[in-house]
């Protein structure tokens, strides 16, 4: 079982410290919802784990520091789905997904049969096989989001990090996306997704990490993290919380004056 350990990760951009001594450990099978208000450090934590930002502290996968891994080797351990769905050129969906195999390609060689099989598998999981030959420009926002997930899935890594994967999607697409992430976790992967929709986070994630001002404010099962006190203290909102047969239901109600 894969183990991702973050030790005292801090990120300072310019003079501003975005992330302060964040430590956590995540085991395979967990679907982590990274929640917190805008500017809490969710994206920074994801990028810091990936090594995309200059950071202090350690990130270890199965006890091995990721900084000791060479680029392609690290890319076979962790994949990244950014919030930005911009694709520069009008590639077909299949070509975009195939890019996920980059860390596996041999120098001067094209994709192998194994790569082709992984691409097809990833496209199947994200339910985008029928879109294979369509240029990305012709796809709807939801279809494009699923193609980009398939790209990250094709990278076939034990750790999968997604930055606001549900942003800008309608409820049906949000749910189908969370289902893909959930299935990924059920197969033993580590999945971390930053989320703004608290109800989605409560419904699908096995564990929530609440960030506030670059530090962890709460960490645990959705019922433990999503409390009236935490929501008031961190988001400055009142909310309607109910434990039903479908788990915890969260309905933000109003902003409250911060003490």
């Amino acid at each position: 079982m894969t183990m991702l350990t973050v030790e005292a990760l801090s990120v300072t951009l310019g003079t501003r410290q975005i992330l302060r001594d964040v430590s956590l450990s995540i085991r395979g099978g967990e679907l982590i919802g990274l929640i917190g208000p805008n500017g809490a450090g969710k994206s920074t934590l994801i990028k810091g784990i990936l090594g995309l930002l200059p950071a202090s502290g350690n990130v270890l996968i199965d006890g091995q520091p990721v900084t000791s891994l060479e680029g392609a080797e690290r890319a076979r351990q962790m994949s990244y789905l950014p919030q930005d769905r911009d694709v520069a050129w009008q590639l077909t969906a299949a070509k975009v997904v195939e890019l996920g195999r980059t860390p596996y390609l041999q120098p001067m060689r094209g994709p192998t049969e194994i790569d082709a099989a992984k691409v097809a598998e990833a496209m199947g999981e994200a339910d985008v096989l029928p879109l294979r030959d369509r240029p990305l420009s012709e796809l709807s926002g939801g279809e494009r989001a699923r193609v980009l997930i398939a790209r990250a899935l094709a990278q076939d890594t034990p750790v999968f990090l997604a930055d606001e994967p549900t942003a800008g999607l309608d409820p049906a697409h949000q749910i189908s996306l969370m289902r893909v992430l959930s299935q990924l976790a059920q197969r033993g992967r580590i999945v971390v997704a930053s989320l703004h929709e608290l109800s989605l986070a409560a419904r699908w994630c096995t564990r929530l990490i609440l960030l506030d001002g670059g530090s962890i404010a709460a960490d645990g099962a959705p019922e433990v993290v999503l409390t009236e006190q935490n929501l008031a203290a961190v988001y400055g909102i009142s909310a309607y919380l109910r434990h039903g047969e479908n788990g915890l239901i969260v309905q933000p109600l109003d902003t409250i004056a911060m003490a």
Partner: protein
Amino acid sequence: MSHRSLLAILGSVVAALFLASLLVGPAGLDLATSIGGLFNGDNEAARLVMQEIRLPRAILGLMIGATLGLSGAVLQGYLRNPLADPGVLGISSSASFGAVIAIYTGLSAAFSLALPLMAMAGAVGAVVLIQLLSGAYAGTLTLILSGVAITSLAGAMTSLALNLSPNPFAALEILFWMLGSLADRSMLHVWMSAPFMVAGWVMLLALGRALDALTLGRDVASSMGIRLARTQWLAVLGTAASVGAATAVAGAISFVGLIVPHMLRPLVGAQPSRLLTASALGGAALILASDIATRIIAPGRDLKLGVLTAIVGAPFFLWLVIKNRRNVL
């Protein structure tokens, strides 16, 4: 059309144009005399025309065209922007400025490699300035504005050199050289520039996989194991070496690096790595064809290659801006 057949077609077009370039010229040699002149020295006049005038001209056309097409494809892929090319970004004019300094100061007369080296230094300077001005996440507008600023600066400095030129004939020579031409170049020019162009190509052609990954943005490319710093160095040095050397021998030839990748992109499924070789061949074809056209349109008038490509290229650039207007603004 498969990628192989596209490359085969482009390759055949380049080969045909290369041959045509050897056979067209004011000397009016017939086919047998031309080919004879190329391989043996029985007919001294034909030998001179073929080996000393037409062969270097055709070789330079091929190499400079390939350089411009390839560097355009790499810059567009690296900057993720269809408006990027060595001319628009001011790299060509900066290379020109470097070369003019070499001519003006007499460095090039004292030391023949000074011309390409100074041109390359100019090209490196432009690329470094672009990086500084527009930052790592260059938006289209910033990038084009940086290019405008650099082109103006290089142009102003070149004008200053012309302005202060001690004799009017030198100034005229610089001016004519700057218009961009392949006329009256010798094998010496080929030997002087070829190593730098080939070195540049090697660096640029190594970038295919990185450019493909950059389609998804810098962060994703990095998360897929692409070393961004290495990519940037190869793109900068490869462009500077090849475009600098091309500019040093032929002056600034604009728009080829812009047009060729743009026209070929749909034929390679928009994949940046596949665009590289195709654009190199397309650029070679375009320069060879344009150079033949300068000889046919105005024989004896020395129509400059750079003037012709600019006349054809500028309207194309306008069309591209209009087509991309929504993205640019």
